[in-house]
C-alpha cells in the first residue's frame, strides 16, 4: 500500500468527498436498520417471543383459513384435533384483541389483550381472571402501578404486575386469562358467537404431521417466524424498510465502484509507468484494493459510530434498536459491498498496457 496511502494524502479532497459519501450512506443504513428492527419489535415482539414452534390459524365455519391474526378464530374442536396429532407436544389457545383501556387518570390508551389459559407457559405471574399483567411502556406512559384498576369493555381489571415490554401491531400487550379475553371480546360484540381463541400456539416435534392436522381441523399452521407476517401491516412495513436498506447497499456499491472507476482511469498513466518499471499486476491490484479498504474502513467506521450516536439519542423518541445486528452488521456489509464495487472498478488495472508509458503520448 505504498502508493495507496500517498495517493490518499495527495488527493485528500477527492478521497474526503468519497469518504463523506460512505459516512453518510452508512449513517443512513445504520439508522434505517435500527429503525426497522425497532419497528418490527413494536409490531411482532409478543408473537415472536411466544414459547411455541408453530401457530395455527382458523376460519369461521367452513371458510378457507388464512394466515391472518385479524381474521383467524379457532374452536374447541380444532384444538382437540391438534392435541390428538402425533408429535404435537402442547397446544395452547391464544386470544388476541386490540382495544382501548381506561386508566385511573381518566385517560385512554390503545393496547392488545393477549388471553391465555392460566396454566400456559407464556402467562406472566400476576395474571388471573380479575387481574392483568401490563407491559412496562404502558405503565410508564399512563403512570400505572401494580394495584391500579383499568377499565375495559368487560369491566374493571386490576393491574396484577408489570412485565417487560411486549408489543403487538404497535400497541403494548396486556396479558390476561383466556376467559377474561373471551368476556372482553363478547362485551365488544365481535361476532355472534365467541370463539375459543384467535389462534392455537403449538409446540410440535419436527416429525409431527402438521399438514394432516391442518386438513383434519380445517386450519392453517405456520412456523412462529413465518406467522409474523400474519400481523397486519408488518410485512409491508418491514418489507418497505428492508427494500430501502437493500437499495442503499446497492447505491453504495455503485457509488464506490463509480468513484474508483474514474479514479483508476485517471491514474492509469501512473499504473502503466509502475508496470513498465516492473510492478506486477498483483502488486498494483493489492495496492488499489488497500486504498479502497482504507476509505471504506474510515468512512463506514465513522458512519457507523455516528449512527450509534444518533440512534442512541433517537431511541428516546422513536422505536430504535441498537444491537450488533443493527450497527456492526450494516457497517460490515457496507465494507464488503464497497469492496465488491472496488474490485470491479480496479480490475481495469489488469488491462493497462505498460507499453503506453513509453513515448510522448502520456
Amino acid at each position, binding site marked *: 500500500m505504498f502508493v495507496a496511502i500517498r495517493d490518499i494524502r*495527495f488527493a485528500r479532497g477527492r478521497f474526503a468527498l468519497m469518504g463523506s459519501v460512505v459516512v453518510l450512506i452508512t449513517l443512513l443504513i445504520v439508522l434505517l436498520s435500527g429503525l426497522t428492527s425497532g419497528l418490527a419489535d413494536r409490531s411482532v415482539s409478543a408473537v415472536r417471543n411466544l414459547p411455541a414452534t408453530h401457530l395455527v390459524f382458523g376460519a369461521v365455519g367452513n371458510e378457507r383459513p388464512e394466515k391472518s391474526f385479524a381474521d383467524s378464530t379457532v374452536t374447541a374442536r380444532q384444538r382437540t384435533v391438534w392435541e390428538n396429532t402425533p408429535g404435537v407436544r402442547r397446544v395452547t389457545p391464544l386470544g388476541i384483541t386490540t382495544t382501548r383501556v381506561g386508566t385511573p387518570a381518566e385517560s385512554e390508551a390503545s393496547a392488545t389483550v393477549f388471553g391465555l389459559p392460566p396454566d400456559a407457559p407464556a402467562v406472566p405471574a400476576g395474571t388471573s381472571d380479575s387481574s392483568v399483567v401490563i407491559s412496562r411502556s404502558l405503565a410508564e406512559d399512563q403512570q400505572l402501578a401494580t394495584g391500579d384498576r383499568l377499565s375495559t369493555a368487560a369491566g374493571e381489571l386490576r393491574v396484577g404486575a408489570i412485565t417487560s415490554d411486549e408489543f403487538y401491531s404497535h400497541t403494548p400487550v396486556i396479558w390476561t386469562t383466556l376467559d377474561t379475553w373471551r368476556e372482553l371480546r363478547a362485551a365488544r360484540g365481535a361476532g355472534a358467537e365467541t370463539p375459543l381463541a384467535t389462534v392455537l400456539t403449538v409446540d410440535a416435534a419436527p416429525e409431527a404431521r402438521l399438514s394432516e392436522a391442518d386438513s383434519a381441523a380445517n386450519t392453517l399452521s405456520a412456523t412462529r417466524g413465518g406467522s409474523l407476517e400474519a400481523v397486519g401491516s408488518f410485512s409491508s412495513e418491514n418489507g418497505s424498510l428492508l427494500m430501502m436498506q437493500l437499495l442503499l447497499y446497492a447505491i453504495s456499491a455503485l457509488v464506490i465502484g463509480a468513484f474508483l472507476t474514474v479514479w483508476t482511469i485517471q491514474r492509469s498513466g501512473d499504473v502503466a509507468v509502475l508496470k513498465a*518499471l516492473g510492478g506486477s*499486476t498483483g502488486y498494483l491490484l493489492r495496492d488499489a484494493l488497500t486504498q479502497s479498504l482504507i476509505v471504506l474502513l474510515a468512512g463506514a467506521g465513522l458512519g457507523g459510530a455516528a449512527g450509534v450516536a444518533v440512534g442512541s439519542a433517537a431511541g428516546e423518541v422513536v422505536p430504535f434498536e441498537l444491537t450488533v445486528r443493527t450497527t456492526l452488521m450494516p457497517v460490515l456489509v457496507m465494507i464488503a459491498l464497497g469492496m465488491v464495487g472496488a474490485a470491479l472498478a480496479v480490475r481495469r488495472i489488469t488491462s493497462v498496457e505498460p*507499453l503506453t508509458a*513509453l513515448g510522448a503520448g502520456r
Partner: protein
Amino acid sequence: MTLRLHGIGLTYPDGERTVHALHEVSLRVEPGELLAVTGPSGSGKSSLLAVAAGLLRPTAGSVRVGETDLTGLRGAALSRLRLNRIGIVFQQHNLVASLTAAEQLQVTEHMRGRSARQARDRAVQLLATVGLSGKQHRRPNRLSGGERQRVNIARALTARPEVLLVDEPTAALDQERGARIVELLRDVTGQYGIATVLVTHDTQHLTHADRTVAIRDGKLSE
C-alpha cells in the same frame, strides 16, 4: 551483463496492410557501453526500445539480458526481470504525481520487497548521485524539467540494472539541460557498468556515446 538483440522482427497489422516496424535488427551492447540509436520519427526507435524492455514481443528474433532470453518469459517473470535487471528512463519524466522525489525511487524498492529504511537510504544516495541532494521531499510539481528527468534516471538506477534503456531523455529539455542529462547518463553507464541504449533523434549529444547506430524504416545501420 550484455544486452543482445538478434534478428529482431516486429510486424503488426494496420488495416489492410502489414507494418514492418523492425526488420532483422541485431545489436549487442556491452557493460559500461553507451549505445546511441538515432533516427527520425517513426523509424522504429521506440519499438526497438519496447522490444528490448520486454514491453513488446517481437515477431521474430530474440532479446537476451546476459543469458536470459526475454522472449521466452511471460507475465510475472517478465515483470520481475524488468524490476530487477532493466532500468527504463522515459521520454516524459513519467513521475507519479503523489510521490516525492525519494518516494519515486522507494516505490520500486517496495515492489522488490526491500525494507523501507534500506529503500529510503538508497533513494537519498541515488538522488545525490544525480545531483538532487536535499530535494528528496519535493513532489514533481516542485521540480524543474531537468530535475524531474534526473529523478527519472535515478529511479531507473535503483535496481542496479544491468541494462538501461533511455527513451528521448532530452526531448522536453533545453540545449544546456539536455547536454547535462546525457553527460549524467554517460557517467552512470561507466560508473555502474551498465549496458545503456540511448534512443534519440537529437544528434547534438552523440559525442557522449561510445557507439552510434542509425535506424530507418525499421532497419539498423552503423
